[in-house]
């Protein structure tokens, strides 16, 4: 891998247990800044579990234990003095099912910046809301109905609203867990186009079951199987000439 590219996240020897079950067997992975990295693999391979380690979403699962290092620009996110709430403003997450707050479109965006004390209500907040909605490519569709509930939007719009909400706190990294699995092809294409734009400013990591989506939308692809990282490389290489036979079998549909 080229050495002139900057790591945003550096993961070393990451192991995770659910009780006695070891779900991740020591993952080493560099997530490059300003790139879209896709995690693929069959159900139960550990890709979502791994994604959730990247902003400590597994912390609250009973019996879950994590070992190893996850460094955000060199700083250990599992260090004892790390404030998890603060951490998640740096590493945001977009989920499979769009989950806007049961509040207005405006409030969906304004809520987090307000509680984090980033911006006061008023013209500054108006500007922040507009910027976030613009970056998420949904401004034109909602600018005339900012006071309407976010839940009244279509699924694809809700997902872009959730992305805008994540962007509003100016994160470094956006994690996406199957962000398009509940969306139709047009809405999916819009999200993929959005990822392409957002990577100018943010590092994006996406978990997807849709291999064509990984191929279309990512720069790098990591293939997980049974808690191991099998292969990691440029997406174009993984999809044309993977070096591992197990990767080949999976992406050509010869799996299981």
């Amino acid at each position, binding site marked *: 891998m080229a050495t002139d590219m900057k790591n945003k996240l550096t993961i070393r020897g990451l192991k995770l247990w659910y009780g006695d079950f070891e779900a991740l067997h020591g993952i080493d992975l560099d997530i490059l800044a300003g790139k879209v990295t896709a995690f693929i693999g069959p159900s139960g391979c550990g890709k979502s579990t791994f994604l959730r380690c990247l902003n400590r979403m597994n912390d609250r699962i009973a019996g879950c234990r994590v070992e190893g290092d996850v460094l955000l620009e060199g700083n250990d996110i599992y260090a004892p003095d790390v404030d998890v709430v603060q951490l998640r403003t740096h590493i945001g997450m977009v989920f499979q099912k769009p989950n806007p707050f049961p509040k207005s479109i405006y409030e969906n965006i304004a809520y987090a910046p307000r509680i984090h004390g980033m911006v006061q209500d008023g013209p500054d907040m108006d500007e922040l809301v507009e910027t976030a909605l613009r970056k998420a490519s949904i401004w034109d569709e909602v600018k005339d109905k900012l006071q309407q509930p976010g839940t009244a939007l279509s699924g694809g719009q809700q997902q872009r609203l959730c992305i805008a909400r994540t962007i509003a706190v100016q994160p470094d990294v956006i994690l996406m867990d199957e962000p398009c699995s509940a969306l139709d092809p047009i809405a999916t294409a819009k999200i993929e186009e959005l990822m392409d734009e957002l990577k100018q400013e943010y590092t994006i990591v996406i978990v997807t079951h849709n*291999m064509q989506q990984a191929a279309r939308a990512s720069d790098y692809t990591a293939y997980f199987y049974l808690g191991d990282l099998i292969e990691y490389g440029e997406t174009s290489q993984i*999809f*044309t000439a993977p070096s591992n036979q197990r990767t*080949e079998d999976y*992406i*050509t549909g010869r799996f299981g």
Partner: protein
Amino acid sequence: MPEHTLKRFEDELTSLKEKILAMGGLVEKAVRRSMKSVLQVDTSKAQKVIDRDRAINALEVEIDEMTRSMLALRQPAAGDLRLIIATIKIVTDLERSGDLAEGIAEAVLQSEENPLTHTSTIETLADLVIRQVKDALDAFARSDLDAALKCIERDKKVNKLYKAMQRENLTYMLEDPRQITAGLLASTIGKNLERIGDHAVNIAEMVIYMVKGHDVRHVDHKTAAAILSGELDED
């Protein structure tokens, strides 16, 4: 390699390979038969080559149709993608080779009254080229890198012999103007054979891409072998 989960896709890939091999078999036969028509001055054989070229062309169209629909409907990746890409290229080389064999047959028909006067070098050239075609097709059939490299390596010999043959041919024509008609025929046949060899090399290179994912076009044989043994990076 384990079987595809989608049985129908697996069947399509198998059928694609079989079609390429069938087409390759027809081309190999066309080259052999065209040379027999030259050496035995047998116009009926020449006519057969010309008639059979239609079957080669029909396979080209059929294979192209298959690859088009597989690309659109299956979104192939990795080894499957490389097989389909290789097929798209190989089919063109095969079709051109068929045309070149047809060209030899046409030359035989046109110069029935003035057959070749010197055949030994051209015979050797034909043997080499036919082996190249055979190696390229074997390489494809068995994903055999050694056969592919052999085909590519043999091209040096072919080119050398082709040049020698043309020089020799020119000497005959200069010495005796009555040899000119036969000399021109020899020149056409030699040129077509040499180009069939080039197409075989293209096929062998695509087989290497198909099997290993390395592009060895436009590098010399030694570099290609080094890339394949993993000693060298492509760039």
